[in-house]
C-alpha cells in the first residue's frame, strides 16, 4: 500500500491469480480487435483520403458473406470469453467444505467482524494465510459492499439477509478493504484493513484478544435467554422441530417443497417463522423480528449450526 505509480493491484489470493489470467485474456482479445479497427481506419483514412491517387476499382459488392463472417467470428470469440469468466465465477461461489466462517455486520459507517471463537474487531479483519475463509455478511441498515481488491473479490451486503463470500489468502500482509456500494455521507471512510497472518501468528493474535466465549457458547446462552430452548430444547413440551443435525440438510416444507437449512434459512425461521414452515409441524412459533439484533442472530445461527455438525465444536475455531 505504498505510494507511487501503480499499474496493477497486489495479488494476494488464489482467486486473484486466476482472475489476472482472465484479465490478460480479455486484454489480448480486445487489443487485437482495437488494433484491427484502429489499424483499418488509419490505413483507409490515409490511403483513401480525397486527394490520393489510390486505386478504387472493384469495390466490395455483395456484403452478405462479409457480414455473416465477422458476425460469427465475433460471436465465437465472445462465447469463449463468456465461458472462461462464468467458470471462474462459479468457483467463486462454491466454497470448500472446510472454511472458517467469520461473521460481518455492516452499518453506516463501519464493518463489525466476529470470529467464531468470539473475538470481535471493527474495520479490521485478521485471517490466517492459506486457509479458506468464508464471510457471512449482513447489514444493519442500507446496502453496503465488502470489497478487497487484492483478493479480487467483492459482494453486496444487504439488510435483512445473509450474503456469503469465500477466499483463500495466499500472501501474508495488509490489504485494503472498501465499501463499494454508496451508503451515505461517510461512504468513502467505510474502509478497513485485512491482515493476512501466518498460522502461528494468527493463533497468537486470537489468544491475545482474550479467551472470550465462542460464538457457539454465546449462542447457547441466548438460546435459553430468548426462550428457544423451551420448545426446541430436550425438555421441550411443544411439538417443535429438533435442531440437532439440522444444518446443511434438506428440510421438507409444509407446502411440499424442499429447502436446504443454511444460515439464511435459520435466520428466516427466527425472524419470519411463518414464511417457510417445516412439514409436519404446526405454525405456532412467534416471530422474533425486531427483538434480536444482527449480532445476536449470528450467535444463535452459530449455535444451531454447531448442533448440526457431526463433530461438535468444529465450527468454533479453525483447525491448526
Amino acid at each position, binding site marked *: 500500500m505504498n505510494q507511487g505509480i501503480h499499474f496493477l493491484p497486489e495479488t494476494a489470493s488464489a482467486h486473484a491469480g486466476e*482472475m489476472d489470467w482472465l484479465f490478460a485474456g480479455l486484454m489480448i482479445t480486445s487489443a487485437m480487435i482495437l488494433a484491427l479497427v484502429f489499424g483499418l481506419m488509419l490505413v483507409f483514412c490515409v490511403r483513401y483520403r480525397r486527394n490520393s491517387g489510390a486505386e478504387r476499382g472493384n469495390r466490395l459488392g455483395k456484403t452478405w458473406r462479409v457480414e455473416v463472417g465477422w458476425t460469427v467470428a465475433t460471436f465465437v470469440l465472445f462465447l469463449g470469453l463468456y465461458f472462461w469468466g462464468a467458470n471462474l465465477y462459479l468457483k467463486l461461489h462454491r466454497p470448500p467444505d472446510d472454511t472458517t466462517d467469520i461473521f460481518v455486520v455492516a452499518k453506516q459507517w463501519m464493518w463489525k467482524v466476529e470470529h467464531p471463537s468470539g473475538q470481535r474487531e471493527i474495520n479490521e479483519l485478521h485471517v490466517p494465510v492459506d486457509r479458506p475463509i468464508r464471510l457471512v455478511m449482513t447489514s444493519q441498515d442500507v446496502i453496503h459492499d465488502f470489497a478487497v481488491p487484492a483478493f479480487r473479490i467483492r459482494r453486496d451486503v444487504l439488510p435483512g439477509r445473509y450474503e456469503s463470500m469465500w477466499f483463500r489468502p495466499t500472501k501474508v500482509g495488509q490489504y485494503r478493504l472498501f465499501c*463499494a456500494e454508496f451508503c451515505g455521507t461517510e461512504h468513502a471512510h467505510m474502509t478497513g484493513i485485512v491482515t493476512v497472518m501466518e498460522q502461528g501468528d494468527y493463533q497468537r493474535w486470537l489468544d491475545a484478544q482474550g479467551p472470550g466465549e465462542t460464538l457457539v457458547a454465546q449462542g447457547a446462552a441466548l438460546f435459553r435467554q430468548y426462550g428457544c430452548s423451551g420448545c426446541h430444547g430436550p425438555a421441550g413440551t411443544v411439538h417443535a422441530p429438533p435442531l440437532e443435525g439440522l444444518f446443511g440438510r434438506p428440510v421438507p416444507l409444509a407446502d411440499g417443497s424442499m429447502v436446504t437449512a443454511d444460515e439464511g434459512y435459520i435466520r428466516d425461521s427466527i425472524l419470519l417463522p411463518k414464511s417457510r414452515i417445516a412439514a409436519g409441524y404446526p405454525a405456532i412459533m412467534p416471530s422474533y423480528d425486531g427483538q434480536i439484533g444482527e449480532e445476536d442472530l449470528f450467535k444463535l445461527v452459530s449455535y444451531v449450526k454447531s448442533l448440526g455438525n457431526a463433530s461438535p465444536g468444529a465450527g468454533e475455531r479453525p483447525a491448526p
Partner: protein
Amino acid sequence: MTATSPDRAVTARPAAQPPNYLTEGGSTLRSWLLTHDHKRIAILYALTITVFFFFGGAAAAMIRLNLVTPPGIFAADTYNRLFSIHGIVMVWFFLIPSIPNTLGNFLLPMMIGAKDLAFPRINLLSWYLFVVAGVVALVAVIAGGVDTGWTFYTPFSTMYSNSYVILAISAVFISGFSSILTGLNFIVTVHRLRAPGMTWYRLPIFVWSNYSTAIILVLATPVLAITLALLAVERLLQVGIFDPALGGDPLLFQHLFWFYSHPAVYIMILPGFGVISEVVPCFSRKPIFGYKFVAWASVSFTAVSFLVWAHHMFVAGMSVYAALVFSLLSYIIAVPSAIKVFNWTATLHKGWISFDAPMLYALGFIGLFTTGGLSGLFTANLAFDVHVTDTYFVVAHFHYIMVGGMVSAYFAGLHFWWPKITGRIYHEWWARIAALLIFVGFNLTFFPQFILGYLGMERRYHSYPPEFQFWNILSSAGASILALGYVMPLFYLTWSLYRGQRAGANPWAATGLEWTTPSPPPKHNFDKTPTVTRPPYQYRPEPEPQDAQGHA
C-alpha cells in the same frame, strides 16, 4: 439563436434570404414559446439541453477538482450531492434528450419528406414538460441537493437519506412523460408521414435509429415512472416495498430500476449511431456499407436491450444462475455493436475521404465507442466484473460509451447539420481544433480511470487512499483539456450565427432529403412534398458541390 438576424450579418453574398422557419411566423418570444414547428421546438430543446450540459459539466469539473488530492477539498456531503446531481442532470436532462429531441426533432420529418411531426402540439407539450422537470431538478439543487447518486438505490434513498430525494425523483418522473410523448410522436411520424416512395429500406439510418430509440422510450420509461412512484410511496408513507425493515425487498428496486436504465443506455447511444451513419458515408463519398445490416442492428438493440438489465447486479445478491444467463445475453448484445463498428470502418474502404469537423468528430466517436464497447466485454464477464464493478473501471467504461461516444456523436451531428439548421457556416479550423482537443482531453481524463478501477479505487469516494493519487491527477488534468474543448464550440458556433458565411442548400453535397430544401428550411420544410425514387446514400465519388462556399 433567436438573435439570428439576417440583416446584420456580413455575408459574401448579400442576396436576400428566402423566408425560412426562423423568419416566418415572427421572431417574438411569444411566437417561439407557442410554436408548433418541429424545427423551432428542436431549437428550444437545443438551448435548454446546452444549459443543462454546462450545469452538469460544472458539477463534473468540481468532482475532478476535489479528486486532485486524496483527502478531497469538499465536505463529504457536498461531494455526494455533486456527483448525484452530475449524474441526474447528465442522464435525464442531457444524454437522453440530446440527439432525439434536438437533431431528431429537427431532421426526422425532413428526412422522410414530411411537413412536421405527427403531433406538433404534443411535441411542444413535451418541451414544456421537460422544462418543468428541469426547473424541479434545479429547485432540488437549490434546496440543498440530493445525495443518493443517480441510481437512487433503496433502502438508502427511501429511509436513510436526509436530502431532497422526493424533489429529485419528481423531476425525473416528469421528464419521463416528455420522453414518452416524444417517442410516441416519432413512432407515429415514421409510420404515417413518409413521403411517397420513401419505403422502409429507403430511410436514412438516422431515421431507423431514432425510430428504434422511440420504441425503447415508450416501452421502458413507464417502468421507471412506476419504480420512482413506488420509491416515493415508501419514503413518504413508510409502506414496505424495498426496505427489508418494513418487509420489502432491496433487490426489487434494482431489478426495476435497471429494467429501465439499461435500455436507457441504448436510448442514449442509438441516435448517436444514426448520426455517425450519416456523417461517415457523406465524407467518404460512399454508400454506407451493409445498409440493411446496420438498419436491423439498430432494431435488434431495442429487443436485446430489454434482456440484459441484471448485468448491473452480478455482485448484488442475485442467484448464480441468473448471473450466468444475464452475462451470456450481454455478450450477445455486443455482436450488433461490433457489426456497426465494422460497417462504419468498411464504409471508409475505397472512399474519397475528407476530414471536415463532422468527420473528425465521427472518427473520434468510432474510436471512443469501440474502446468503451470493448471494456464492456470486461464488465459483462462474470468473474472480472466481480473485481471491477462499482470501481472507476465502470466509471471509465460508461463514460467512454456515453460521453466519448454519445457526446462526440452529438457534436458530429451538430456540426454536420449546423449549416442546415442556421443557414450559416462555422469556422472550420476552430471546429477541427475543438474536435481534436475533445478527443485528446477525453482519453486523458478517462483512460487513467480504467487503471484506477483495476487497482481498486471505488466509485463515489470523496477521499481515497494516497496510492491512487497519480492517476487521479492525470485524469483531472485531462478534464481541464476536455472542458476547454467543450467550451470552444460555444464560441465559434455563436460567432457563426453573426459572422458565418451563408450556407447553400447542400454545403456537403450530401444525399438526404433534408439537403434538397433551402438552408435554413422554410416553415413547412418543402415547397411541395418530394417523391423518393432512390435508396439513400447514393454518393458519387467526386462531388460537384452545389455550393462550395466556405467548404474548401
